[in-house]
Each structure stands twice: as C-alpha cells, then as structure tokens.
C-alpha cells in the first residue's frame, strides 16, 4: 500500500523478558479512521506509544509518510504525529486555554511566546471541538467528556496530520461517545489520519474504516471493519460469541459468553 501514511515493519517491544509487541506488520492508509481492538493487555497502548516514539521499539521500523521515524527529530515528529492520552490526573490548576496551547510547543523556539498566528490556531481548535465555552475553566475541574474534548483540541493545535487516540471513549457516557465520534469523522473530512484504541466494538464497527486486531502482542487481523466481525475472529481474539441483530436503525452487535 503506497498511500499508507503509517507503515509498521517487524515491530517488537519488550519489557525485560516480557514480549509486549511481537513482530507487528501493519499499514494505515491516509485520511481514514483506523480502529485498534483487542483484549486488555494485547499491546494496543504500547503500539500507539511506539508508533509516535514516546517509547522506543526494540526492533523493527515505523515509517511516517515514507520516512523512517527514527531519522526524524523529536520536534519534527511531534509536528507529524500526536497522541491523545487517556485522562490523566493533574495536580495543578491550569486553564483550558493554556492547556490547549501546549500543543504549539513543537512549533515554537525555546524562548518564543505564542504569536498571533498560534493564538488563531488555538481559537480554531477550541471552536472545532466545541470547547470554546470553557476556555477559562481549570483543566482539573472538567468532566471526563469535557477533558477528552480538550485533549483532542490540544492535539489539533499541533497541526499533526496523524492523530493517535488511546481509548478516547472508554470513560465517557453515550452522548459524549457519539460526540467524539462525530468530531473524529469531521477531522477525517479535513484530511487527518486517525488511529484509535477502542474497547467498544459496536462503536468501532460503525465509525472505523479499518480495524486492526491485536492478540497477545501479535497482529491477528487487519482489514475492513465489516470483515473483522466474523464470529471466529471474535471468538479467537476476545473469547466471546457474537450475534448480529438488525433493527430499523441498522445492525447492532450482541456479545455473550458460552
């Protein structure tokens, strides 16, 4: 696949003797939403962190827009690819605007303050994510859904064409889940490539263009989302049974254990 903005070749990552990622090969096409699924401990979060080199892989290569990721400086890499982490606890009172402005860091020189151009980009990100209304609130006073939106705004501010999201919806209520998915669809329309770890398989099937299934650190399946939900796949990866049920509003998935 030549149009793949992220290409992973023989990627391995281990902590001590524990193999977390075992020879992963995968391609992620430009301008699509890619879901990464798998049971807890399958290596999803590790995969994300090695893709954007927050953690250094033991062996193997990640190509970002055709370039070996290890050959790209940290600063430039941060302009190409950015991670939206799961919610983290912050002990300091930081205003949403200042928090979002951190995303400009890779674009600024050491002693440079925000320029008008940067502020415009921040304002735009606040508007797109619908977080403009709490720009002056403190980050540690936001709800889970609100702070997830703010984290996405911060990722947009980097202007990186590739956005990685680590479980963006797992702690959210259904309304916020759908709001995030709608936002991701909008970002896709703007040309962003999105990779996200996601636990909610139904949500993944509806909103992702491709699905990548991980099992015990190995790639089990990569391909279109529809094909991914064959019952033998689900049984082998998640150890549960699956049934589709169709209503007037579409098909939904039913999972159960034997």
């Amino acid at each position, binding site marked *: 696949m030549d149009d793949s903005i992220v290409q992973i070749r023989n990627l391995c990552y281990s902590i001590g003797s524990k193999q977390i990622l075992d020879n992963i090969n995968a391609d992620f096409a430009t301008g699509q939403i890619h879901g990464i699924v798998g049971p807890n401990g399958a290596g999803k979060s590790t995969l994300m*962190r090695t893709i*954007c080199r*927050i953690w250094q892989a033991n062996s193997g290569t990640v190509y970002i827009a055709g370039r070996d990721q290890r050959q790209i400086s*940290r*600063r430039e*890499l*941060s*302009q190409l690819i*950015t*991670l939206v*982490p799961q919610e*983290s606890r*912050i*002990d*300091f*009172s*930081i*205003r949403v*605007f*200042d*928090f979002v402005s*951190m*995303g400009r*860091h*890779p674009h*600024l020189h*050491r*002693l440079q303050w925000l320029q*008008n151009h940067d*502020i*415009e980009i921040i*304002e735009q990100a606040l508007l797109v994510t619908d977080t403009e209304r709490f*720009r*002056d609130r403190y980050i540690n006073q936001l709800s889970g859904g609100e702070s997830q939106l703010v984290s996405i705004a911060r990722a947009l501010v*980097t202007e990186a064409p590739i956005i990685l999201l680590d479980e963006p919806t797992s702690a959210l209520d259904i309304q916020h889940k759908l709001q995030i998915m709608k936002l991701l669809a909008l970002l896709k329309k703007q040309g962003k490539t999105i990779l996200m770890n996601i636990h909610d398989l139904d949500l993944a099937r509806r909103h992702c263009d491709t699905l990548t299934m991980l099992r015990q650190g190995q790639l089990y399946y990569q391909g279109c989302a529809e094909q991914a939900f064959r019952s033998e796949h689900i049984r082998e990866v998640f150890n549960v049974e699956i049934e589709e049920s169709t209503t007037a509003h579409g098909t939904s998935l039913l999972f159960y254990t034997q």
Partner: protein
Amino acid sequence: MKNSRFWQYERLQTVIALLVVLTVLVFGVVLSVTIGPWEISLAKIGHIAVEMLFGASATNNDPSTAIIWYGRIPRTLTGVLVGFSLGCAGAIMQGIFKNPMASPGIIGTSSGAALGAVLAIYLGLASGSIYVVPLFSVAMAFLSLLVVLGIATTGGLTSRYTLLLGGIAFNAIFTAMTSVVIILSTEQFDMARKVVSWLMGDLNNRSWEHVLIIAVIALVALLGSLLFARDLNIIMVSEEQARNFGVNVGLSRNFLLFFSALLTGGAIAVAGGIGFVGLIAPHMMRSFVGSDNRILLPASGLLGSVMVVYADCLVRIVGSGGLRIGVLTALLGGPFFLYLIIRDRKKFIYF
C-alpha cells in the same frame, strides 16, 4: 487578536501581583537596612550607599559606613537573594515532581545540602576558600535530588506518596549524619557552636563575598531554568505528554534538577537552614500569577525574598539574639504545610 476579556484580566492580575510583591520587597529592604543597635538615618544610609557605590571619596573612618556598607547592606542583599533562590527552587521542584507539595525542605534536598556544608566545615576545607562550602552543599543537594527522583519515579510517573515518604527517610538520614558530624566536632567547642547556629538559618555577619556567591548562583540558575520553563510547563502535566509535544524530557529535567540543586545548595551554603520558603512562595504565587513557569519562577523568587527579608527584620526586632530566621520560617511554615495536608487529605486516601 481575538482575546476574551477574561484573558486580559488574567494578565492584569499577574502584573498587579508582581508589582505588589516588588513594592513590598523594596519596602522590606529599606526597613532591613535601618534596623540595628546603631540608629542611622535613612538619608545617611542612602548617602553612604551612593558614595560607596560610585567610589567617591570613601570616608572609611566613619563607623556608620562600616556598619551600613559592610554590615547591613550585604546582610539584606544576602537575604533577598537567598529567599529568591529558595522560592525559585521550590517552584522548579514542584513542576518536576508534578506535585505542589514538593520543596527543598520536604523532600530532603535542604538537609542533603546542609550535610554537605557541615562536612566541608568539619573537614576544615571551609577555611581554605569561601567557595568550598557552596560547592559541597550544591553537590549534595543535586545528589539527593537525583536519588529521591529515582526512588519516587516508576515508569515516568512520580508518586506523591513515595516522594513524601522518601523525603522523610532522607531527612532522617541526612539529619542524623549531620548530628554525627556535630558530635564529632564538639571537641572544638567553638566550631560546634558555629555549625549549630548556622544550621538554624542565620544572616549575621554576611559579607559582600556571600552576596557575590549567591548572586551569581541565583542569576545563572534563574536564566538557565527560564530556558527550560516552557518545557517544565508540559513536564508538570505529564512526562509522556512532554515527549509527545517534542520536549527532550531527559535533558530538560536534568538541567532543571541541576538548577534547583544549585539554588538550594547556594542558599543553604550562605544562610544555613531556612525552611518552608520553597514550599510556600510558589504555592501562594501560583494563585495570583497562574501556573506558567516562565512567570511563576521569578514570581516565586520575589515572594521568597520578601519572606526571608521580613523574617530577618522580625528576628532582629523581637529576637534579641535568641530567635533565628530558620526557626521563624519553620514556626510559620509548619502550620501552612499542615493546612495543605488537611485541605488535600481526601486525595491522599487514593494516592
């Protein structure tokens, strides 16, 4: 620029807070040079300062010149710079440890620096050069910081629980070792007395050499840490995110650790143990100027100066020789620390 009114109000609040602290500091400095057993008018003090500064016909025979120029002014300036260093060091540490309770005194950096200084005095190295004590205390401060950080950090996360417990352990160890050195030195009664008195925090008999040492240290460390202040803004949210936004976390953090050790060690070396300034100053300034370290670092320094200069004034007015600055700051700072613990105790249940 499309800025909301609130945003501009924030900026205004920062400027006002800085101006207020600066005014209070200037007033404290003036107050400090007028306090002493010899009453010398403010006009005369100003006259002496200008005369000595611009090297006009120095009337060295005048005893008030000696009192002001070689006594009160260096004492006051040392206080200003020591307070600045401690406040600034506290702000840096709170950022690195991602914890508003980190400070030189609480996580063992001060007691490490004190041990270094006492060792230098005991081994008789201090008499050789005035720079030996600062060198020893900065080195020990840096070492203790590295060890505490190593213990409290696992997988890029720093636990507040481990950090504070580690601080208790290191404070105990360093204080005990310092005691050993004091006991060993009791044979020379005068040295033991000097060491103990110095440990309590003292600005008596500070010379221009002390001013010079701490001025150079404070300037280098402040300018140096400002280079990394925006990195620190993100590091204090999460090291992973800092890396994500292009910060070279290892480099920035080590430099910042070094600068905070330099500030703590330098302050301890010239003024002894003055506790809690590094905890309180950043804490209070944060609510006025916000969490941006580019402003918070110098702002905390200024408030630290205010605290030490006024503590020194108070000690001279009411202390009559018995009270020491370090004792006073601990008496006031201890309850403040308790207040923080009580305020945050719900969080402690979970972490």
